């Protein structure tokens, strides 16, 4: 049987090379729009103002009795869970005698993406 004439296979080979390079380019472009976040999305996602606000509110409880700030803690926990989808808890203990500060605050914030824990002497 005569050998199949495969002289011109290089044309089809060139065609395949061009197609594969096109597919590769498409994959690269696809990944570049999905993997990178825009700066604005990053800014919106990080809860900078939420955490600062929680801190200010908790530190404003420094002069309250433990029954009162216990209720404030329950307020913040339930409202934050309900409206902000975040877990906010804090604890206030008195500072050891002789310290320059009054209380030790343990603040915890977690909105599912960002977790923040702080121990503050205030």
């Amino acid at each position, binding site marked *: 049987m005569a050998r199949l004439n495969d002289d011109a296979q290089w044309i089809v080979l*060139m*065609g395949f090379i*061009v197609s594969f390079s096109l597919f590769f380019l498409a994959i690269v472009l696809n990944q570049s729009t999905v993997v990178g976040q825009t*700066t604005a999305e990053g800014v919106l996602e990080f809860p900078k103002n939420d955490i600062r606000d929680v801190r200010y509110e908790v530190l404003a409880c420094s002069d309250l009795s433990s029954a009162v700030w216990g209720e404030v803690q329950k307020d913040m926990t339930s409202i934050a869970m309900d409206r902000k989808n975040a877990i906010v808890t804090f604890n206030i203990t008195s500072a050891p005698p002789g310290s320059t500060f009054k209380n030790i605050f343990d603040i915890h914030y977690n909105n599912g993406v960002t977790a923040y824990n702080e121990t503050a002497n205030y």
Partner: protein
Amino acid sequence: MPDDHAYLSIDFLAGMTIFMVAFIWVATMIPGLLISLQGGTIDYDAVAYRTGVILVEDPGMPANPPWENKDDMQKDEIQRFGLALTKDNPNILAPNKIERFFCSTSFNYPDDYQRRVIFGDRPYSFNVSLSTFDAMMNWSVGDVKPDGGYGYIRRLVKIKQPSNATINAPAFRNSGGDGNVTGHVFSVHINCTRLLQDVRNPPYQIDPLRERIVVNITNLMNAYVFTDPTNVITLSKIIIYRQNPSQPLAQVRTFDTSYIDGGNTASSLPVIVNDNASVIFPAGFFYGMANENSHLYINYTFKLNTPDCFFNNSFTSPYDYDYSPIRVTQPLLKEGVVEVAIW
């Protein structure tokens, strides 16, 4: 022998042509895929946001000793501008930093600002402006904003107003026989320990070491006891004394200028005063000569031509520059807005 006819068959040409046409058409479709990726303009808003955060929420680098106290010769030591009062007080701005940042004689647009607040490899044009809601203060640096196509951010701030003491001279008139003299001394007392300990929150604190201190003495013409129309008041000198704990009182230096009778330029002492004298101690003036535990005394010496009882507290007690609102106008926070535009 090899075949070197050098002609191609027509069928080969036909196949090759179809291939080339298809290849060229596909190649021209590639730029259409890449058209959505842009280079430069996409990050103007990001740079504007970052510049806004650096200016409004950061105190600058170096923060201690503060960058705004570095003079023009030392401006290379300033690594980053920032207008916030301290790291823990974002959005509350210090007036000294504002005045220094917008000072066009100290810093050149755009190079000095590009290196210290805008950052980035690409040279951006920018405009930073700040104004208070009551329009009393309005600063701006940079080019005029174009009509569109710029990155933008707007931040709200509170600007700390410096404290000042306005002293009504007749209230401190000296009476009694031994007060009838020509030389009178009035002393203002700055107790650094009390000032820095009583109020520890920086936005509401009077910080004598880092902030401007202003003392206005008013209504001097009614401070005589015996009205003698020919009597002339001369503010002859202002001397500053310091007392550190467990050390004796020491004279530090004299202060040689004062704004007399509502004038716009400072006059050097000794000078004749009619009605009022204002002394402005610039921010950082006391920094080198006192520490957090010092007591500072600012002694005004007035000389009269003919002896009289006058504005004098050397027999009573020094005037305390403290947190009493009767004696000192307390530092106040005033709302303002900062806008940054980058293009």
